[in-house]
């Protein structure tokens, strides 16, 4: 097809399967593809359980909170997590073209990492902070390795994520949208009250949050996804604070730290991050 500038380009197609893929692969191509697939495999590490329980044994879990993306991760770091009440019990390491997870023990929300925490006072409460990008071919692996290590009886999942408001479809004028704002999606089994309105048709959710919610819907696990639509792409307080209504939800209510402490931690977090990103003296 010819564009307005006269150049001839291949017409984009929603077919999703390039005709070039029909060409037979050589042994070398297959070897390269196999090596790339191995490199893209994700690895999950779990700490051995209490009282000598092996690391491979699935963890009993009543509540699993998953934060995907820098702002959701920063929200949990500021308002929920602290080193006294929570301990690290697992990590996922992965590599893809967009990111590689860090091996550092002390992490910032802008780093790429995926860590699992357990509440010391109630070991059935698990929390996951995933600030690395999990590519579409790795999402299923992530689900199998994470949910394969969690017992599903009595489990309830809460997912927090963010999305650019430019992807929000509505008949209203986008100038009047109260960005950032929260929208929710829930599985059939989730019966609790929501902290915000449901996401209207024809909006959809993609990537890891969608993969987790799909898994919960198929395997009949009560789950809710809270997606924050924001017009700021980097870490910022306004987007993080947009998640605050969730602090009154049943799953997060009794996990909340002192709010004044949280605000201080949030400010400190963002100052640290800004210094790192500042290219001017």
């Amino acid at each position, binding site marked *: 097809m010819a564009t307005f500038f006269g150049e001839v380009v291949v*017409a984009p*197609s929603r077919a999703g399967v390039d005709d070039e893929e029909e060409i037979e692969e050589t042994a070398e191509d297959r070897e390269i593809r196999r090596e790339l697939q191995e490199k893209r495999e994700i690895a999950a590490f779990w700490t051995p359980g209490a009282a000598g329980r092996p690391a491979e044994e699935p963890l009993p879990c009543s509540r699993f909170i998953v934060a995907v993306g820098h702002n959701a991760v920063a929200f949990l770091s500021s308002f929920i997590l602290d080193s006294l009440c929570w301990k690290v019990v697992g990590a996922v390491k992965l590599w893809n073209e967009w990111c590689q997870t860090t091996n550092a023990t002390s992490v910032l929300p802008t780093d790429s990492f995926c860590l699992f925490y357990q509440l010391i006072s109630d070991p059935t409460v698990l929390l996951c902070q995933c600030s690395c990008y999990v590519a579409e*071919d790795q999402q299923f692996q992530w689900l199998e390795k994470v949910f394969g290590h969690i017992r599903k009886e009595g489990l309830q999942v809460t997912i927090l994520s963010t999305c650019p408001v430019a992807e929000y479809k509505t008949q209203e004028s986008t100038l009047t949208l109260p960005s950032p704002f929260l929208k929710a999606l*829930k599985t059939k089994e989730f019966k609790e009250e929501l902290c915000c309105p449901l996401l209207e048709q024809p909006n959809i959710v993609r990537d890891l949050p969608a993969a987790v919610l*799909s898994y919960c819907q*198929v395997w009949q696990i009560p789950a809710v996804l809270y997606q924050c639509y924001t017009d700021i792409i980097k870490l910022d307080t306004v987007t993080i604070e947009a998640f605050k209504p969730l602090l009154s939800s049943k799953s997060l209510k009794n996990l909340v730290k002192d709010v004044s402490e949280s605000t201080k931690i949030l400010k400190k977090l963002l100052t640290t991050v800004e210094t790192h990103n500042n290219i001017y003296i």
Partner: protein
Amino acid sequence: MFVPCDGGGPDFEGFTLLMPAVSVGNVGQLAVDLVISTLCMPKVGYFYTDCLVPMVGNNPYATTKENSVELSINAEVYSLPSKKLVVLQIRSPFIKNKYRPFCQTLLSWVESSKCARVILLSSSHAYQRDDEQLLGTPLRYLLTPALEKAIEGHMQELKWKEMEKVAAYPGISDTEKVLHIPGGGITKLLFTESCSKGIHMAVLLKFCSEGDNIPDAFGLVNYLNEWLQLIEIRVSAVCFRVFIFYISYFHFLYWLASLWPAVTKSRPNVRYVLIKIVLGSFPPKKTNLGQRWWKL
């Protein structure tokens, strides 16, 4: 793998499985949406797979506030036992290098669930048609040998056109012909695999381009309906089109006539001339009839 919504697990033995190929214009998927929403088909399960890009959203077929909050995922199964119809809807593209495993998983499920036949709705790039294909209907069909044997000459009765094969080496040799469905996604792979496994499969496809493909979806569903008779069409499409034409033609004349008073009120000469033209005769002497016409 197929995961039922409720523990039981429905029985699809003898059913017709209708599914789309993710293809140019998403025509197959739009057509399947049309079938599901028109027949009000309830969801019976999910096709849980690692081959499709994950996505979730609320029920796209919502009719009430209550059913608008049901979650939908990327591959779902709907069923209508009264018509022995089961429909698989696919809502996202394939993950890179995963379309072959998907075809294998799908065909295994078709065999294990003992579906009587599979109908694949698809589309192909309109710009890659040859000179002959540019004329006539843009709709085509393909049947695996197993299904062709089963339904014999039904397609000839319907006067449908089979998808033409193209030269394997165009310009060099015309003797060797191959099936080529550009923009058809996994259509060709599913079809060839079904041929080799002896599965009863039909492919119904439409030549189209990317754009507003809703009319293409309607065209494809009407094509399907000619065969499966899923719904009754009281007035045939041709009669309907003729009816609409006449209505719009007469509507135009009425509209034109309604302009008469406004246009000719201050132009009695124009009225005179136009009446003369319409009646095709000299105006009568000033009579009551003439006065009446004059006052129009």
